[in-house]
């Protein structure tokens, strides 16, 4: 700011006035530039932190369910769900490798009432499609 201070002859009123206006403008421009520089830096830091947080959350989502859940239990809900793009990251992280058209991985699992074992390939071998609903009570 001091660089812009200099004496202007008193008698040159109009010139002084014009110079003052110019100096004020330069001062303001300089201040604006500093403000924007600082704001840009702050926004930049926030953006970097946000991207890093997204990366960390994505990495956590790719861990086994229990490990993911243990971490999530410690993260405040609004941060993960409102500040970070939780759903977008989740859809990618948990997409899985199986694609439509792929052979369905076979399994042989016991029925809940323990009356029998269900094998997927045995069902489809009978020419029946199968709906699989994965889930739990909680």
């Amino acid at each position, binding site marked *: 700011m001091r660089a812009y201070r200099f004496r202007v002859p008193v008698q040159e009123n109009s010139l002084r006035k014009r110079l003052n206006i110019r100096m004020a403008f330069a001062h303001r421009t300089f201040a604006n530039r500093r403000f924007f520089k600082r704001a840009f830096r702050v926004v930049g830091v926030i953006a970097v932190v946000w991207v890093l947080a997204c990366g960390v959350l994505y990495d956590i989502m790719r861990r086994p369910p229990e490990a993911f859940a243990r971490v999530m239990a410690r993260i405040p809900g609004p941060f993960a769900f409102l500040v970070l793009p939780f759903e977008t990251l989740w859809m990618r992280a948990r997409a*899985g490798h199986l694609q439509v058209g792929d052979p369905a991985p076979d399994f042989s699992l016991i029925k809940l009432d323990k009356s029998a074992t269900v094998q997927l390939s045995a069902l489809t071998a009978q020419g029946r499609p199968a709906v699989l609903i994965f889930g739990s009570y909680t």
Partner: protein
Amino acid sequence: MVYITEAHPSDVWQMQSNIKDEVVFASPKDDEERALVAGACVRKLGIQIPAVLDEFGNSTEQAYTGWPDRLYLIDATGHVAYKSKPGPFGFKSEELGAALARLVN
């Protein structure tokens, strides 16, 4: 229904909505405990479709990336005809219904 690892067990990631609904279960420690929680689920929700238990090593869940919930349709040749996006956001029964209608018709 393939009963898999709990989504929100009380000792790991408790949800307020589950407390409200009185669905509070700690993580099952073995197949037997998983079967007990699954049994409670089937009884209280009145699930009538066949239910199977994923083994405690979660091999089926891992093969299908089924946690916390997900829908699949397997066609009669044993291929994946429909795969929902991961739940809970991608768990859309109407999409499954449409896929099933396409497959049958």
